[in-house]
């Protein structure tokens, strides 16, 4: 039945409609939160129930397959985790909280629709639905005590975002002109005949640009640190994790257009990857604001993800998806701690984490696991992901690239571990204890367990990821 194919999206759409009516009335943030949370958790179960559905919808512009359904689970999980640990939403005024949840939900709907779209126009609309909601989340931070940087972040985010959209649209117009179609199923064979044509390469690069922007890869990274710093802690947790999964998924879909002959494209992506890694890691070394530091680390991680994409092979794409899923979890573990430690939703300097192991041992442990995983230290998921990305690139003969990436991993260890050192070795001085709610405790324990489990036994996940990627060819 066709309705079952669209069930997760339909649930979220109806939910957002209900939430929209809640925003027009006098509903407080608490009610809106419990409604959204129920919706998000119900959506996870529905996504699992629809995991093996297959079919086409909306004149073949919308494809339900294992690829889209598996990614929908990841996106819904990320959304639910963010909602679970942002219990108090300290950085947002109470009267705008229903709107805040509405935009967060709309953004998730956009991302969920994006991974299913197999046509340029529907992909574009889904991307814009998710982006515009994110643009609006950033300036909603409470401006008490004259805090005004969130406005600057928002304007930078939307301005660069519009340019990235424009570039992507321009590339799409060339794709349309060269092939006369907007469907991926027809674009793939048509593009294979056009690989010698420079216009085709330019078009694909421009379309990739829109998603490289979402991922925060080097020349389109300007927004990352500023938005991370300016947006409230919970918003940053969402922006830094969930959209990146969808971005990688779409990069995989678009790169399928040039597989396996896109040699010139590979060179470009290699350069971008090396630049992202070096830029992100070197600038992160000198940061004092922890969110800004995680922003630069996000740029570096985008560079690592590209290592898997440049192999132009199913196995490489699968490792990239595995890595970005792992990144979602490690990143959320770090942001969970940040959101709890920030008493009034203010920005944290790294020194504010001093003595965290005395103020809250569980949060200190979560932070340590998250940071160790981001640094790529075994047995956590970050290590396994990096290891497989590097061996995958090495098998393709990109020795120099692998050496540069390994050097970068070494650089990054310094700033990740110095955060852990501050949390464990410094004395807390006058800083108060951190009170952690029961749900947050269980979420952080679950994150720790998953980060370790994915790192110890990655085979099954990689197998699933490979199956997932195979379904799009």
């Amino acid at each position, binding site marked *: 039945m066709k309705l079952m194919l669209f069930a997760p999206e339909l649930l979220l759409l109806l939910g957002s409609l209900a939430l929209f009516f809640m925003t027009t009335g006098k509903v407080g943030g608490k009610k809106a939160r419990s409604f959204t949370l129920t919706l998000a958790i119900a959506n996870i179960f529905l996504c699992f129930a629809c995991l093996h559905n297959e079919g086409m919808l909306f004149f073949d512009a919308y494809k339900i397959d294992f690829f889209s359904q598996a990614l929908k689970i990841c996106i819904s999980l990320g959304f639910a985790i963010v909602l679970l640990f942002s219990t108090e939403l300290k950085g947002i005024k109470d009267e705008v909280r229903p709107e805040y949840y509405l935009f967060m939900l709309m953004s998730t709907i956009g991302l969920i629709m994006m991974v299913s779209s197999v046509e340029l126009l529907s992909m574009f609309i889904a991307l*814009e639905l998710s982006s*515009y909601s994110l643009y609006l989340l950033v300036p909603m931070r409470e401006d008490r005590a004259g805090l005004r940087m969130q406005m600057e972040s928002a304007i930078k985010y*939307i301005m660069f975002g519009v340019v990235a959209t424009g570039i992507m*649209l321009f590339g799409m117009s060339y794709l349309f002109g060269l092939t006369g179609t907007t469907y991926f199923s027809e674009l793939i064979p048509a593009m294979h005949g056009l690989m010698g044509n420079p216009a085709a390469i330019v078009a694909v690069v421009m379309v990739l640009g829109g998603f490289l922007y979402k991922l925060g890869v080097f020349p389109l990274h300007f927004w990352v640190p500023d938005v991370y710093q300016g947006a409230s802690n919970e918003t940053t947790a969402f922006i830094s994790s969930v959209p990146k999964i969808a971005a990688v998924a779409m990069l995989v879909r678009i790169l399928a257009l040039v597989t396996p002959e896109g040699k010139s494209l590979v060179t470009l992506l290699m350069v971008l990857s090396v630049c992202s890694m070096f830029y992100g890691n070197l600038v992160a070394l000198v940061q004092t604001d922890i969110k800004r530091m995680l922003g630069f680390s996000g740029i570096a991680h985008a560079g690592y993800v590209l290592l898997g994409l440049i192999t132009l092979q199913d196995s490489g794409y699968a490792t990239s998806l595995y890595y970005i899923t792992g990144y979602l979890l490690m990143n959320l573990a770090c942001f969970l701690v940040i959101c709890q430690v920030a008493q009034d939703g203010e920005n944290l300097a790294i020194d504010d984490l001093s003595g965290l192991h005395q103020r809250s041992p569980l949060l200190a442990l979560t932070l340590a696991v998250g940071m160790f995983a981001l640094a790529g230290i075994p047995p956590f998921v970050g290590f396994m992901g990096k290891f497989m990305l590097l061996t995958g690139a090495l098998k393709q003969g990109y020795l120099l690239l692998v050496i540069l990436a390994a050097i970068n991993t070494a650089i990054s260890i310094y700033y990740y571990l110095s955060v852990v050192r501050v949390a464990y070795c410094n004395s807390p001085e006058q800083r108060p204890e951190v009170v952690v709610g029961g749900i947050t405790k269980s979420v952080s324990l679950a994150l720790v367990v998953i980060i370790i489990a994915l790192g110890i036994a990655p085979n099954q996940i990689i197998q699933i990821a490979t199956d997932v990627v195979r379904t799009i060819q």
Partner: protein
Amino acid sequence: MNLLTLSNELNTYLVIGAMLFGIGFYGLVQRRTFIGMLISAELILSGASVNFMAFNRFLAPNPTVGQIFTLFIMAIAAAEAAIALSIIIAVYRNYKSVDTEDVADLQG
């Protein structure tokens, strides 16, 4: 090349589209106010729209796809302008300026 048939050639429109894109990009780098940057961004979008219409008229097997795409670009551009302008107003309330040089707290 005949000037009179210039309006019936694909290349004319592709050049116009590319020029709009280039002007928009130049404007974005050059403009010092957010409003100016927003106008430049709109030029980039219209460059893409011109391209779509041109390919639609001269090459596409199904001459509705490009038009529909352009309509969607226009709608999206309108939504984007609304969001961008509302954020610009919020910026103005906080900074009393929409100049890029005045709005630069975040650095490092």
